[in-house]
């Protein structure tokens, strides 16, 4: 059973729909017992970093998820905001702290030559192919104004070019995360989810 964390930051239904399509059992929940008994944890989410962290802290999920993912090494997938929240800090909308599981910071995309948010389908360059084997396409759907800058380049699993290279995916031990939305990226996205849940 996969626990999709419900912390009031939207978009949970889409992740479950994709898992249903792949015939992977899941529940949308904030219940500690259910999360404890789950094999995998998914942290989805759209919205602002500050609001997301506030919701995680107020519900006690920040500490509980840290125990599950860092101490008990439960398999973790973060999507979009869910990827950024694992960073140490973010400047959205001002300097504040994240879950701190992966060393690095979240900063605004600053480039006067391009439209921001980075919105639409863009192809990734894979650096660590653990969950990116046999992709039917390298195009994934991105929608973000902030990006993750990890301290250690070794955790970068994929990059995306939008004027410059940005981090599209990270992997560190049992933590895997994508800046793009696999649940919204049709066959390529479903392929990544399938490869994570079947192999992680």
């Amino acid at each position, binding site marked *: 059973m996969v626990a999709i964390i419900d912390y009031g930051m939207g*978009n*949970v*239904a889409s992740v479950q*729909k994709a898992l249903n399509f792949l015939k992977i059992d899941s529940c949308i929940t904030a219940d500690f017992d259910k999360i404890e008994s789950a094999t995998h944890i998914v942290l989805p989410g759209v919205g602002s970093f500050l609001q997301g962290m506030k919701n995680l802290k107020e519900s006690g999920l920040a500490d509980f998820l840290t125990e599950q993912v860092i101490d008990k090494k439960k398999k973790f997938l973060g999507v979009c905001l869910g990827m950024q929240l694992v960073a140490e800090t973010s400047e959205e909308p001002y300097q504040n702290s994240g879950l701190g599981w992966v060393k690095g910071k979240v900063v605004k995309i600053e480039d006067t030559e391009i439209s921001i948010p980075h919105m639409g*389908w863009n192809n990734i360059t894979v650096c660590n192919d653990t969950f990116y084997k046999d992709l039917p396409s390298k195009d994934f759907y991105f929608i973000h104004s902030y990006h993750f800058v990890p301290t250690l380049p070794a955790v970068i699993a994929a990059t995306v070019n939008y004027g410059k290279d940005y981090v599209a995916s990270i992997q560190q031990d049992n933590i895997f995360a994508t800046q793009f939305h696999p649940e*919204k990226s049709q066959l390529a996205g479903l392929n990544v989810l399938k490869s994570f849940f079947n192999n992680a």
Partner: protein
Amino acid sequence: MLKTRIIPILTFNGFGLVKTKKFTNPRMVGNPVQAAKVYNSRGVDELVFVDIFASKQNRKINLKLVGEVVKECYMPVAIGGGIETIKDINDLLKIGADKVVIKTQALTNTNFIKEAVSFFGSQCITIAVDGFKSGESYKIKNDLGIDIDVERFVNTMEECQVGEFIVNSVDNDGMMGGFDIDLINKVKAISKVPVIAAGGGGELKHYSDLFLQTSIGAVASASIFHFTQFTPHDIKVEIGSKGFPVRL
């Protein structure tokens, strides 16, 4: 490289899909769930679904139906129609919408737009810019008697840090005679966020003209898909042949 987005737009009247001409004379064109299913199977880049009568008729969008539409989609979906509160937005996101399209509240209540942006993030808030030519300038069409230039409206929304504009030409809507290049360039010149052009596409050449004569990255269309044999894929092949990045 970021790909050009080709986006079918479904306009809804509370019962079925309709297609207008110059924003009037809605003509029934089918069932929204069926349409979403077809577009998903064709792997379209994104889908826009708007209840164009919700605000006018002072009612909420039908969440059950929107849920059924979104259920068919494994690509991003933007939903609009009668959005007035944070709860309205949250209800749509909860059932799988990725973005919301707002117009009426953007004209009457900029504080609400700011609040929505701070709560859900810029990327979630798309503003509909329905422009019509008035003398030498463009104004925003609305039923509220508000007289506002397109540029002023776009600047105000940029200050609210919205994430995207969908610029629809009222004059060209449903006419299938080509896009209003002038209107789109006017918005593009002052906007720092992504802009979707809409209104007027009827044949493949209109799309290559649009991308050659403007610097936008996305186009939304309805009539060409309802009333001709052309598919989003055909449009991609056309603009791809002109050197623009597409996802085939």
